């Protein structure tokens, strides 16, 4: 039940975040893609940091919950042990993304 609510809420966040992310890519690469340009846009901006941290958290949780359901149905991976593993995988995925967002903010 809680997972389902989280899945729906993160889906709503992702729907907006992915569009913003893709639109930014489309607009940003028109002048050619360079690391300097990306850092110039994201570096030092709290708004972009917050956006990408939220995006990464939503993606990490959403992905892990979805994979949990697929693994339960197709591989029979059910139970507390697997659930804890999925929590760890979800948070680890989110942590990688958030670390990258912080890296760009601090760059």
């Amino acid at each position, binding site marked *: *039940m809680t997972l*389902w*609510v989280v899945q*729906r809420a993160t889906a709503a966040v992702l729907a907006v975040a992915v569009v913003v992310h893709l639109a930014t890519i489309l607009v940003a690469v028109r002048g050619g893609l360079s690391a300097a340009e990306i850092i110039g846009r994201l570096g030092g901006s709290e708004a972009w940091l917050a956006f990408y941290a939220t995006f990464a958290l939503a993606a990490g949780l959403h992905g892990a919950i979805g994979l949990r359901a697929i693994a*339960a149905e197709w591989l029979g991976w059910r139970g507390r042990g697997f659930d804890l593993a999925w929590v760890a995988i979800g948070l680890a995925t989110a942590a990688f993304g958030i670390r990258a967002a912080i890296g760009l903010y601090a760059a």
Partner: protein
Amino acid sequence: MIEVQVWRGDASGGGLARYAVPARANQTVLDVVTHIQREIEPDLAYRFACRVGMCGSCAMVVNGRARWTCRTHVSKVAQDGKLELRPLSNLPVIRDLATDMAPFFDRWARARGQFQPKDSADGAVPDEFAVVPPASAKRQAADAGIECIGCGVCHASCDIVAWNPDYLGPAALNRAWTLVNDVRDGARRERLDAVAGDAGCHACHSTQSCTERCPKGIDPSGAIAGLKRTLFWRVFGLDR
């Protein structure tokens, strides 16, 4: 002649047997099975009662699709004059075309599919008749799912039932949804608890095979969505 292949066997296994059945006008698939049993193979096991689409006992898999056989005309489903009949999927086979329906109805019990009168906690008949206006939204939501005959076609058609042995399934959840909308019922909270989670409505992917194949035109997928919606708002203390 209709070329009919019928799955014959029991819980330990089996295979298809071939029969030739005379084609007749307005012949139903159940007529074909009955012909085989009466004229060709007296020990063929199958199940039926009413023959008019009320009792829900004659469902089988006809050419790969679960159907009520008493209301299915051979002319509508035969492919090149051929029929392949198997017992309902997702249920244990007793013998030939008869499946054990106990796991199906056990799920109704687990989903708290029994009416619990609000006015008498011990389940006795209340003293007064309840007045439920037919036009009220809750009554109409309950009416939408109440004509289920328990045939098991949705259960046999559901991928989640096949993948998740604990899943309550479309029929039990549809039943729970009719009771959640029954204003006379007093076990709403317990029922919502029973249908939540990985074995309940949240396991459903809304692929809607149940709705597509329900011979009564019921929408179990919509009922499951209703349960999800109700449970969602309950998190915020809202009763919708």
